[in-house]
């Protein structure tokens, strides 16, 4: 008996270890990738490269955050990529009109960004109403909204990116918290004066503002999902819609909120994109932002059946995909291998999820 017990406990120990590996597999995978790439890619393992990665991930982090909420409820939102383009073009257009009409830089930026954000709520509300009230499958409702927002966006900008925006935008969007010129100068938020072009390569930049921005937003989302009634209800709806209804949760209203939140976050990504690039970008047809976000969320442990997923998981998902992409680029590997790698990683993610159903 005793022998048997120890055998069993040994087995449980092993199982626990395996489960720990399975649970943190994305983290382990990221670590592995980093080790490999620091050998294969010159310049991969450096502060500036990681800052680049997080800076360029900002948009995707926001989109994945949006998709996380939707997927936990068991839905899907295909319109996020185009809502992003919609808000980007809309806010840029307003900024452009105000700026050229003589409004000050800051006023036009603030007014433009806020109106872009508010407008981006509309497609979300419509999505939510269609899905919650009229029981249109999320796939179809958001696919329809995909076409509609894309059409409206292109009508506004006529196929041209919106440009001639105040230069301040890019300055804010690409600024860093701290600039250090070794042995010479140090300053906050702006490049130290007197750094000439030749020396600019030596300037050290620390902590991009965009990281500050994404940390703030994601912390709020994390808190919302993890510690609030709203988050709890989101999981409940995804776990068992009937149970949620019987428990007195106003599921319809909640779903409308979820899709509105998703659109709002996509809108935020769009506005940020204006800051990042200095132009209002419509979303190109083949960008497939939504599929990227869905992939990241699934890698992060969410299930498309609903009821599972977390913000931290989704963040890891985005970082994994972005580090993979960046590392392969720096290592000079053909982009085509990247597609294959993404596909295989996704399958690994889901199979791990299937093998250990109670982990996440």
């Amino acid at each position, binding site marked *: 008996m005793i022998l048997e017990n120890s055998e069993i406990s040994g087995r449980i120990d092993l199982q626990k270890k395996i489960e720990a590996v399975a649970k943190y597999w994305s983290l382990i995978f990221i670590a592995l990738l980093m080790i490999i790439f620091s050998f294969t890619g010159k310049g991969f393992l450096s502060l500036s490269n990681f800052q680049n990665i997080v800076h360029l991930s900002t948009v995707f982090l926001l989109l994945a955050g949006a998709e996380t909420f939707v997927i936990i409820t068991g839905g899907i939102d295909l319109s996020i990529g185009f809502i992003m383009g919609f808000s980007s073009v809309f806010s840029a257009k307003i900024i452009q009109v105000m700026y050229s009409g003589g409004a000050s830089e800051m006023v036009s930026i603030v007014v433009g960004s806020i109106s872009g954000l508010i407008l981006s709520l509309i497609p979300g509300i419509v999505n939510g109403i269609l899905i919650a009230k*009229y029981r*249109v499958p999320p796939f179809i409702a958001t*696919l*329809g909204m995909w076409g509609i927002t894309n059409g409206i966006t292109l009508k506004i900008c006529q196929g041209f990116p919106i440009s001639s925006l105040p230069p301040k935008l890019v300055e804010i969007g690409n600024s860093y918290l701290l600039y250090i010129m070794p042995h010479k100068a140090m300053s906050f938020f702006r490049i130290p004066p007197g750094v000439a072009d030749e020396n600019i390569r030596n300037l050290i930049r620390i902590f991009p503002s965009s990281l500050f921005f994404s940390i703030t937003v994601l912390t709020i989302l994390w808190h919302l999902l993890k510690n609030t009634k709203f988050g709890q209800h989101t999981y409940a709806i995804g776990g068992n819609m009937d149970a949620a209804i019987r428990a007195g949760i106003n599921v319809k209203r909640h779903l409308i909120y979820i899709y509105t939140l998703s659109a709002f976050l996509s809108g935020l990504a769009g506005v940020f994109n204006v800051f990042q690039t200095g132009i209002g970008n419509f979303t190109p047809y083949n960008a497939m932002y939504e599929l990227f976000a869905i992939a990241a969320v699934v890698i992060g442990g969410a299930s498309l059946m609903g009821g599972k997923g977390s913000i931290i998981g989704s963040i890891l998902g985005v970082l994994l995909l972005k580090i993979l992409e960046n590392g392969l680029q720096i290592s000079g590997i053909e982009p085509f291998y990247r*597609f294959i790698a*993404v*596909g295989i990683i996704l399958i690994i993610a889901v*199979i791990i999820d299937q093998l250990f159903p109670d982990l996440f």
Partner: protein
Amino acid sequence: MQSLPLNKRMLIFVGKYWALMFLILETILFSFLSHGFLTLRGIQIIFFFGTAIFLLGTAETFVIITGGIDLSVGFIMGFASIVSAKIIVALANSGVSPAWSISIGVVLTMLIGLIPGYINGLLVARLRVPPFIATFSMLAVTHGVSELLIQGVPAKNLPYLANAIGNGYFIYIIPGKVVSFFNKPTASFRGETLLEIIPNVVVFSFILIGIFGFILKRTKFGQHTYAIGGNVDAAIRAGINVKRHLTLIYVISSFFATSAGIIYMLKYVTGKADAGAGFLLDSIVAVVIGGASLYGGKGTVGGTILGCLILAVLETGLRIMGVSTFDKYIAVGVILIFAVLIDQFFPELIHKGD
């Protein structure tokens, strides 16, 4: 229990046949209002360019009835176009006659094209990976492999015969002079009226679609497909080998995507990785308009073809009419949502009518 009042019966009628009515109305409108729509040419354009979504739509019909979805069909189509082009070019260059190279290439590609579907099926059926993810991964993998095969540059230099088959017609008529089959009359000269009737690729597609439509509607295989979509547990307990069946479903889907890829290769004499990328969503939309539910258990090949036609007529009609591109996106989005709303509002009426 009184018999239903007239307006209710009308509603049932509308709910049941709205798609067909929409198609008819759409066709009537366009034929009055856009020049050159209701002509032999206009109609053949709809069918000729519709082949891709007809085939991919049929693929999705099978998958969606089982409650799944196949996102990889577009890139399997591209993969097939590349594989077939590569094989044919290689054979032709090594001295095999064009007819033989094309035949061998097509047959081999048909076989190779089943592989991604088989893997999809294994992932979904055996490893219980959600179809969305399994097929999305397959999308990425086939995309990567296709691009690697051609290094980013579309495969070309196919024999002229491929072009002749892909863009050929069954019957050619020069009114009052010549009728010829399969080959363009040599007597024709530029500017003369030449009637070309029934494109080859349309015939080929509809034979395939017809066969599989029949299988779905009339056979045990079809019945089991619906049963799996309706209630997997019931299907398992009824002794249906669900795993094997699902695997077969994804293989069928892959088979149709491969056929679409081969037709692409014949039509455009190139192989291109993203050949079918743009048709994926259209084909899913067509299936849904055709009355299928993404929750599974419902849908018919006939309905899907109806859905495809609604989309193809709309696209072609708006194009011939010259409506701006941007408005078209909006129109398609609105119609899509509307299509599903109707379905949501009439379910009980539709079922009573069955």
